[in-house]
């Protein structure tokens, strides 16, 4: 069947985009706090002041005339990530994992010249990857040395964990695994696998690619049954702290696992919520209602997370 009836979706508690925009984003996310989320430099400095781990910032390129000298800035580092401070949807991210002579090596093993790196930075400054094409700032940050226990669930890219938190209560979570079809990107509509995670334990509930259930990663063959996110408590703690940090009550936190630091906050999203329902094969609405009850009952950070694990676990 091509369409699902609205009644069936309502029964499952699926949150539609209109309801999300009016009922959650418009209502709980004050506009003036958006820059904290949309500008990754602001997110980073705010997170550091709250002792939330973030990738180390190496350098910032703000003006076009600095681009010519950008390669000097990069000399001390073997691997790094260049990204636009206000990029949207993971655009404009260049991951360099090493060097060969004067050239740089990308994650895929492709070699690129210093000129190409400079051009990438110049494009970022011109706003090519940014919301509305505004002028932007390029930031260079440390490469995530990502936890090898999750390596088998991703093809080329870094798997990241998205947690939606509402009023300080973690509500739903998924892991996004890059595949060959998604060209190493963790974008579900490009063919990445979305794995719904149990809020209580951090283990996989179900995995979905192209809207269909899958059991194992299509490229690596790793079965998702064995997936268990380490440091799960810390992941939930991080996501809930972000709500307090930004003042945005409805928010998605993108978290990656670093070998040394454990869960690290990569970026925040003020408009999350649709793809994660597909990955979990479950609706958000009822969970948001429970989260509202939890938030009304207690103001304590840890109590909220405990209640969330107790009431929202099991993937119902």
């Amino acid at each position, binding site marked *: 069947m091509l369409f699902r009836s*609205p009644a069936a979706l309502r029964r499952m508690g699926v949150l*539609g985009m209109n309801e999300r925009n009016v009922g959650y984003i418009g209502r709980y996310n004050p506009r003036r706090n958006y820059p904290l989320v949309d500008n990754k430099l602001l997110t980073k400095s705010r997170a550091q002041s709250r002792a939330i781990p973030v990738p180390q910032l190496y350098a910032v390129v703000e003006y076009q005339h600095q681009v010519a000298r950008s390669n000097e800035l990069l000399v001390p580092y073997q691997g790094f990530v260049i990204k636009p401070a206000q990029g949207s949807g993971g655009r404009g991210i260049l991951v360099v994992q090493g060097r060969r002579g004067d050239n740089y090596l990308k994650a895929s093993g492709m070699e690129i010249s210093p000129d190409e790196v400079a051009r990438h930075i110049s494009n970022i400054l011109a706003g090519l990857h940014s919301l509305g094409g505004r002028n932007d700032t390029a930031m260079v940050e440390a490469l995530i040395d990502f936890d090898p226990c999750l390596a088998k669930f991703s093809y080329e890219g870094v798997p990241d964990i998205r947690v939606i938190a509402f009023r300080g209560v973690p509500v739903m979570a998924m892991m996004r695994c890059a595949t060959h079809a998604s060209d190493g990107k963790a974008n579900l509509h490009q063919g990445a696998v979305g794995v719904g995670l149990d809020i209580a334990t951090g283990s996989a509930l179900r995995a979905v690619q192209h809207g*269909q259930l899958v059991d194992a990663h299509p490229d690596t063959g790793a079965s998702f049954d064995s997936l268990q996110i380490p440091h799960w408590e810390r992941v939930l703690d991080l996501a809930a702290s972000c709500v307090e940090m930004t003042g945005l009550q409805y928010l998605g936190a993108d978290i990656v696992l670093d070998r040394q630091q454990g869960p690290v906050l990569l970026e925040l999203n003020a408009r999350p919520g649709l793809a994660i329902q597909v990955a979990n094969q479950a609706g958000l609405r009822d969970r948001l209602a429970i989260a509202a009850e939890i938030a009304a009952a207690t103001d304590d950070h840890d109590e909220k997370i405990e209640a969330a694990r107790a009431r929202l676990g099991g993937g119902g």
Partner: protein
Amino acid sequence: MLSSRLKIELIAGALILFGVGLTVYKVFALGFPLLPGEYREVWTIETKISFQPESGAVDVKLTLPEPVAGWELLDEHFASSGFGFAIRGEEPRRANWTKQNLQRETTLYYKLQAYRPTVDALPDRPPEALMPPLLNPDQQVAMERLLNVLRAKSVDVESFTSLLLVEMGPEGSDPDAGFLRSTWEEESGDILLGILAHAGIPAGHLRGIRLEDGRRRQTASALLEVYDGDNWLVFDPETASRGLPPNFFVWQRGSQALLDVVGGSRSRLEFALVSNSLPARAVVAMEQRLGRYALLDFSVYALPVEQQGVFKGLLLLPVAALVVVIMRLLVGISTSGTFMPILIAIAFIQTTLLVGLGIFLTLVAAGLWIRSWLSHMNLLLVSRISAVVIVVIFLMATLALVSYKLGLDQVLSVSFFPVVILAWTIERMSILWEEEGPHEVLVQGGGSLLVAVLAYLAMSNRLVSHLTFNFPELTLSLLGVILLLGKYTGYRLSELYRFRNLGRD
């Protein structure tokens, strides 16, 4: 304290009720037709008299049109601030503006609305006395030779006049006609009338306006009227064809001047024209009720002509906005840019749908190709977009030129496409292409086009344009509906598709 939802619902409800209520009142109490029905083309003619005053008293006389040949006058309006004003005489009436002295260049206005319920012949009138102009001996000889040639070739007044017009026109070959034309003195009056007078045929000018919708600075034209002893025959001296041209508003017959300005120089008489298709019954209602109901004085019809034309288009925009809102909020089609589809739809109205689609796709495809070339040049964003703007303009000019040479006149309407919007569309599409691949370009571009086509269909619908123009209060109802949709929290059609497999194992 009302919840914001209830507040919106109350406001929206009030707006919808107000709009619908006023419409119902106009339909039932004032007799406005709700459905388009039979249409009448009502022309609004705005006459502009401008002149440079000299010292002393100013006296301006304008001959007013008499409704002939089936034309009916609906409404007349004079603007004459600071002037003494009177209408004198009967058949023809003349408007007379007077003022003791005047400092700077002045413009006087006379606006009328006319329509033509029936196409009648011109009424009979007695011919004026023949007054052949005096000629010098050489001209006299040439005149006689020309008349003899024409008489030899013609059988009656009609064929004589036709031949005369051809010979006096740009393609005339008769040497005597050419000689008369080149030596004719201005004070002898119109050369055609002069020759006809020498031939003993009563003739005169038929002054009026060639009606073209949207023309701003139309000038009066003169047709030729000849009397064959029983009837008046009308000729168009420009085309030498017989009969009253269909879109010709007759202003005045006879030799009297249209405009006399005493105490002023460099006087100009210009007309601004707008045609509205109005339902026949509304025209009748207006005729009977104008000036009696304040409500009608506040309708769009009370505006000056040029603004009426503008509002005819503007009042359609809310409908297009509603289409965009519905397609985005209820259906969930993603478009590139929120209101880009409306601008494209407006361009489609000028170009017609298929031609417009063709032009749009050509321009965007060519623009994308050039943009992909520009992206290799590593330019800064602003100059890149400016470059695309210039290239798009150049493409439009090329397209217009090539199609004109090929005789495809419709493609000339390419200039109605908003250049900057096109350039932004190309830029967005090309970034989308680089980042998300051609698939996403097709999805978003197709979505935008689909919404644009739907908005076009809504705006070009006759019932819709009838309702928006005659019942502008319905725009408030539209506003109410759009406000309500802004609080719609149900699913979009696209989500019913996106979540179609949810919970089915």
